[in-house]
């Protein structure tokens, strides 16, 4: 099959970007979307042109490094699918595709389709963890975890940190990502001692990073490759409210905890 691609090209963080059109010829429906880009790039390289830069690593839908907005859809048209798992059979011969990077102030473009998502790491660093220094743990079965709680925690923990939720949200909100981490740790007994502090610290950091707010569009859930449900956002709001209103003050806050 043959396709026409309009691809966002941008030399670096500060450069002005623009769209460039490429023809993709003789594409096999069995190719993955990224393999289709590989083919185009091979051609560009042999012409001595710079290949299209795009992020990827595992190419099996688990590392969360890939991500392209295809005709306005983060990760493309297919439900519960990362860009790397998208296959060309999801498109038709002659299709025109517009390829854009994640667009959000908190995710600056650093080249072509590659953005900088370190804001997510900083949100995790602010509180997305359980303080359990190595060697201090009790036996794995010392604290029982009801199966439903473990399953729910796993649903939330399935997040791969790809950022598609931010890319797709009309408000560029990171609520789904943050809510998923808060829910993952919040469903487990081990996560309770830091539950309030985690919610406050992560939400504060999320705001500082300049993500947008949530008006409950639900677009994030729709594009999420791991189908993280927005119920978790409601849950985060609840946790935040409880913490903000009733949490006992943390006197040692000064020393960074």
């Amino acid at each position: 099959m043959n396709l026409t691609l309009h691809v966002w090209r941008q030399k670096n963080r500060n450069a002005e970007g623009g769209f460039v059109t490429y023809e993709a010829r003789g594409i096999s429906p069995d190719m993955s979307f990224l393999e289709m880009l590989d083919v185009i790039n091979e051609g560009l390289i042999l012409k001595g042109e710079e290949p299209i830069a795009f992020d990827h690593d595992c190419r099996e839908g688990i590392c969360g490094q890939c991500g392209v907005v295809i005709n306005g859809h983060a990760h493309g048209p297919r439900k519960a699918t990362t860009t790397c798992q998208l296959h060309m059979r999801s498109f038709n011969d002659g299709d025109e595709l517009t390829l854009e990077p994640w667009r959000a102030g908190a995710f600056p473009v650093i080249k072509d389709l590659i953005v900088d998502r370190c804001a997510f790491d900083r949100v995790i660093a602010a509180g997305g963890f359980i303080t359990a220094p190595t060697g201090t743990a009790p036996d794995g079965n010392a604290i029982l975890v009801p199966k439903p709680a473990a399953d729910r925690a796993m649903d939330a923990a399935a997040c791969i940190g790809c950022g598609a939720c931010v890319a797709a949200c009309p408000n560029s909100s990171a609520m789904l990502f943050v809510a998923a981490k808060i829910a993952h740790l919040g469903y487990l007994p081990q996560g309770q001692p830091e539950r309030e502090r985690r919610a406050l610290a992560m939400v504060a950091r999320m705001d500082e990073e300049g993500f947008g707010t949530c008006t409950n569009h639900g677009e994030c859930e729709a594009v999420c490759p791991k189908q993280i449900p927005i119920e978790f956002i409601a849950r985060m709001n609840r946790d935040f409210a409880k913490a903000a209103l009733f949490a006992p003050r943390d006197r040692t806050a000064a020393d960074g905890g």
Partner: protein
Amino acid sequence: MSSAASTAAIAQSPAESSRLARILGSSIGQKFVMAATGIVLSAFIVGHMAGNLTVFKGAAAINAYGAALRRIPALLWGVRAVLLLSVLGHIWAYLALSVKSWRARPKGYKVTAYKEASFASRTMRWTGPILAAFIVYHLLHLTTGTVHPSFRAGDVYHNLVAGLRVTWVAVFYIVAMGCLALHVFHGVWSMFQSLGVSQPRYESFARRLATIFTIIVVGGFVIIPIAVLAGLLKVQ
């Protein structure tokens, strides 16, 4: 780059600020204000809609209702104060949240497409201000009478019917009610989500409530301008 994150340590404990400041300052706290004031406004329009319907029982009935509203000034002004605060709070939250979101995407997409976001949810930021404009006009129109062709203090029936007989005014009312429909259709569901009551987008109590609320309230409102246009309600 996250070596930047590493060079500066990150606050792992919430800063010591007053609880109120923490809530009003955060995007989630502002959602709470939005929702809380949304509840008040929603509750008001239910009652208001019901009161308006007395117009069909005739001039006497609705004028009596209007008079009743005014019997205890303290109560009247109390209600007005709450309403005013709610609208102001609602608008403040709207501005605070919207500014955050606009800042959050300096450069937009060339192609935009939606999988899930509804027309109602995407137009909240337009239906809201339109409602604000409507309220202002509406107060000048039927409460103070400033912009009313033949305002008679106390004669609610006359003011209403005479006021809405002017076609473009009636149309404006109807359009405004269309906006209200969209606004509460998303808003009332959204409220639950914002207040932390997890509710699936479909097949949930919140969704049904929002739908029914929209039909009843907006239906109850628009029927009046329509009735006037249709000549079912005449000036005596």
